[in-house]
């Protein structure tokens, strides 16, 4: 993994750049809200969609309801807050699952090479042949609606990208002298792969994973918007946007705020990923450090 010293430098680089810092703050806030959401909701029953309030339908944003209320009279603010939790679960779930499949496949294929490597990479190519969102839609439609199915569908369409990424890295690392040295010392291939090759191949994967957290949220929202994602009344952001669509002429706030939430979160992940990329590029880092900008 990235060494402690590296992390410190990375953080220093991020802190000096306001754009990167914004990204970091957004992402941290998103994680914080996602974890604590169920305990900080102003109207928990509204958020879970367990009640309706006939007399409070379509109220515009106010102090009592900062994001207004929806067609069932539910507080949109509470629903958006709780939505962060589902988006977090999706982001972590999709990326985590995709890494779990993608890294070992890429690592084994890259390190062992030969027939096993070719076979593994051809399977990967088969998945890559489909446009990822299209594959995800097809899978989600087949598996049926639901949070778990959405995560599985997206992860299945994503892992090949990680496999490729790791494969390419491992291929260049495995011919380095220290790997040869490890072989001569008599370490088992597994130990070499996971202890000595993998850590050095992870940098681009980390960047990509951070970036994909945002994309996962966006695509899960897209699936819900198309009606193949999570089930109502779960307050997933994409679903909230859809729900507001028919009433957009009388109540624009129902769609706008969850839409903004998606936008800000995805933006945050993008900025952060970019900062990580800059920080992990040795040449760029040296230039930044030497030029005194840090």
């Amino acid at each position, binding site marked *: 993994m990235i060494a402690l010293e590296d992390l410190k430098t990375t953080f220093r680089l991020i802190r000096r750049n306001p*754009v*990167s810092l914004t990204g970091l703050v957004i992402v941290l806030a998103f994680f914080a809200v996602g974890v604590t959401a169920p305990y900080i909701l102003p109207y928990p029953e509204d958020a879970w*969609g*367990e*009640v*309706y309030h*006939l007399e409070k*339908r*379509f109220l515009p944003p106010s102090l009592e309801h900062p994001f207004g209320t929806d*067609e*069932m*009279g539910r507080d949109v603010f509470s629903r958006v807050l709780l939505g962060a939790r589902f988006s977090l679960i999706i982001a972590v779930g999709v990326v985590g699952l995709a890494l779990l499949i993608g890294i070992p496949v890429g690592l084994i294929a890259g390190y062992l090479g030969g027939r096993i490597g070719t076979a593994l990479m051809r399977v990967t190519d088969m998945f890559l042949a489909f446009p*990822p969102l299209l594959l995800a839609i097809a899978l989600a439609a087949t598996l049926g*609606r639901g949070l778990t199915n959405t995560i599985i569908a997206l992860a299945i369409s994503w892992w090949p*990208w990680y496999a490729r*990424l790791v494969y390419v890295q491992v291929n260049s690392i495995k011919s380095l002298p220290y790997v040869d040295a490890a072989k001569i010392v008599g370490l088992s291939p597994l130990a070499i792969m996971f202890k000595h090759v993998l850590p050095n191949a992870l940098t*681009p994967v980390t*960047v*990509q994973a951070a*970036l994909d957290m945002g*994309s996962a949220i966006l695509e899960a929202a897209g699936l819900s918007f198309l*009606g193949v994602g999570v*089930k*109502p*009344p779960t307050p997933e952001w994409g679903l909230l946007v859809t729900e507001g*669509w*028919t*009433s*957009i*002429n*009388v*109540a*624009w706030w129902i769609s*706008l705020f969850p*839409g*903004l939430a998606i*936008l800000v979160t995805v*933006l945050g992940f*993008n*900025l952060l*990923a*970019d*900062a990580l*990329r800059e920080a992990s590029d040795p040449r760029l880092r040296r230039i930044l450090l030497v030029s005194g900008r840090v």
Partner: protein
Amino acid sequence: MTYQGLRGLSRTTAVIAIIIVLVIVGAALYMTRAPEETETSPMATPTETSPSPTVTAPAAETTTQTVSQQPPTTPTTKKKTIVIYASLSEMTGADPSTEFSNSILWMCLVYEPLLWYDPLKDEFIPALAVKWESNEDGTIWTFYLRKGVKFHDGTPLTAEAVKASIERTIALGQGAAFIWDPVEKIEVVDDYTIRFYLKYPAALDKIAASAYGAWIFSPKVVEYAGAKNLTDPKVAEWFNAGNDAGTGPYKLVKWDPENEVVLEKNPDWWGWKLKDYPMASPNAPDVFIVKIVKDAVTQERLLLTGDIHIAQYVPLEDVEKLKNNPNLQVVIKPSFQNLLMLINTKKPPLDNVLVRRAIAHAIPYEDIVKIARAGLARVASGPIPYGMWGHFEDLRYEYNLTLAKELLAKAGYPDGIDRTLLLVYTAGDIYEKRTAEVIKASLAKIGIKVEIRPMSWEEQWSLAQSGWENPEAAQDLFIFYWWPTYITPFDFLYNMFHSDSKIFNLCYYENPEFNKLIEEAVTLEASNREKALELYHQAQKILYEDVPAIPLWDSVDVRVAVKGIGNLDKAINPAYPTVIFAQVLDVSGLQQG
């Protein structure tokens, strides 16, 4: 997605993000102001419509624009008048014998049945038949045909053609062919007289006025299609290629079922020449275009910008606001579509009638109508919708949680049900979704947990079908629309509740007493209406007590159109859902703006 593709995005991402925010805010503000803007300049925002791919239609549309949006100062007497009607759904088939879906929307203008039926006045309007009669018990029916009627190909209408059309429908046995089930034999008495001999008494006048499967077409289609006979699949192919062979006031000139269907006035139609014929107007539009616009919000936008003249659906929340728009008119009519919740009567604990009654009393019907339909529906009273014969007002369940809890306790569930019930509805239907959410919230109050699951109609239906074999594996509650093929209470009661109707009786309800009542009632429809009504009432009383299904609301049709469309109210008939009878419209006011 690719790693390379994302290098160096940070600054641009930020800029793009800010632009998106501005666009969204701008759009939101624009939405709230739109109606006022359109008052001054209906065509001021042509770009607003372009993002929607479903509305950009080729060729015919451009001519439309130039004609219908002429400035008022230059009257265009020679130009054709055009009315554009936006349909929410794609058109389906074009074969008049088998069509049992959306395509009746234009078929009602191109083809004619023997009779039209106005269910609100309970009267018939003669179409291809001018006179008809039956014997005492309704087993022999004679129709006298209109003389001088020609099909669009010039072939004269004769009794032979009527016989051939109906026999093709029966022989193919698809779509709504079942409506002719009572018919034993069709006899051509002379060129303009046709007689039906029935196996059992039935209201053949109503059957002949059905919106599905009762169209008369030219027997020459065999020739045109190069087929051996009428039932040759080549005939169906010929129809589905976009050809018509009807007698109606409009001809099919463009058939693009996914985008638009263009109809042109048939100048030789017999109805234009008759004085005082209720189904014709001297100022009917020359061209009637059905344009597919699959979204209610988009339909409203197009209506406000003047790109369509009549919207099939607008978001119901907006209706109040649209009523106040001086450029628009809103017509609200009863529709014979209703929404019911079918209960799986074979799966515990719902096999217990007390549990079903408890559920019936725990549903806030008024709230559902207000939330799901913005008040634009009527709380149902029995499975037969309001306005139709056979509807009775004494079949409503009272919303009473105390009573519901008592019933549940009596059934042996004082603390509620320990199982989560599965409620399925059709994904994408916003009214069903809201209804489902209100039901979930209300049943929670008497201790019944409900999981609501949106499914595609095919999935939903096949899950429900499995219930006859294995009720345990099927859903518990099923939200379901019904509307009649032709106007008879029997259509509702048989399809959803008769134990022989395995396709749509998704309550899995079996009650021989009920079966007997409606079987008897249907044979009395023509000969003894009073008695038939009484039997239908008894049958519905049984349903009320047994609660195999809970009728939720009877729908109303809301059509919004530009002011210049006259007679819109007359052009809508609940017996022919989604249809606008263009021949009765008066568009003389349209060109003057």
